[in-house]
């Protein structure tokens, strides 16, 4: 059955949902978003028996195709609404796309959240954890910078799910804490990040991404 479209359940401004929405901009898939009441009320709608029957973990983002096919986990949803170009058109490219998607989840998301959440006032600030997270972010940006020294995009010559996933996992960092003096070292990452978010398909979902000017401190 040819895939035509479906509904993405999420809360507003969910960077994990952005992955699928940007992918759909490239693939042309029709993805309807339900993220605000009355259609979808995060915290209630995802706890109803009907939702849990389709998505047993009750997590968002969650995707339901017009054909009834249900899939959860943001990388799986983004992969499903993509096209072969985004997924990696060769075995090597497909493996590299999965490599960077895993890299984003396992190496970027934990330290990025540890550093950023206290500045949003949603988590207790812990100096030691924040300092450690900063060092991990530097390491991650260093790996990306080296890789992007000779490349425009992470895999091959065009945007793939790798770029989409890593950009989305870096969004909060670039918007909230990577002030110019911190990010100046990573010129290739900055160039790559700005190139991506200025692509019309990214802009259609993210709008204008303003890079952080002053590192946000924790919001006591």
């Amino acid at each position, binding site marked *: 059955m040819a895939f035509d479209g479906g509904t993405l359940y999420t*809360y*507003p*401004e*969910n960077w*994990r949902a952005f992955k699928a929405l940007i992918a759909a901009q490239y693939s042309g898939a029709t993805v309807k978003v339900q993220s605000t009441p009355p259609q979808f009320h*995060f*915290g209630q709608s995802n706890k109803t028996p009907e939702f849990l029957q389709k998505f047993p973990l009750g*997590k968002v983002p969650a995707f339901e195709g017009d054909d009834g096919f249900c899939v959860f986990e943001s990388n799986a949803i983004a992969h499903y609404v993509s096209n072969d170009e985004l997924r990696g058109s060769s075995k090597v490219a497909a493996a590299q796309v999965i490599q960077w998607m895993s890299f984003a989840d*396992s190496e970027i*998301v*934990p*330290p990025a*959240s*540890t550093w950023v*959440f206290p500045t*949003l*006032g*949603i*988590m207790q600030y812990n100096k030691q*954890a924040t300092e*450690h997270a900063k060092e*991990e972010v530097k390491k991650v940006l260093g790996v990306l910078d080296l890789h992007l020294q000779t490349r425009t995009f992470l895999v091959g010559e065009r945007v793939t799910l790798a770029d989409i996933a890593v950009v989305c996992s870096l969004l909060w960092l670039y918007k909230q804490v990577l002030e110019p003096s911190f990010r100046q070292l990573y010129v290739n990452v900055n160039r790559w990040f700005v190139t991506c978010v200025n692509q019309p398909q990214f802009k259609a979902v993210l709008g204008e991404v303003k890079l952080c000017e002053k590192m946000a401190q924790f919001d006591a």
Partner: protein
Amino acid sequence: MAMEFLLQERIWFEKYRYDDAERQYYERLNG
């Protein structure tokens, strides 16, 4: 509002501690 939702995310904040401990364990094991 979206900030509050972020807290619902399942983030393994302690991952680095587990990664470090696992690495040290296997480094010791492999002498």
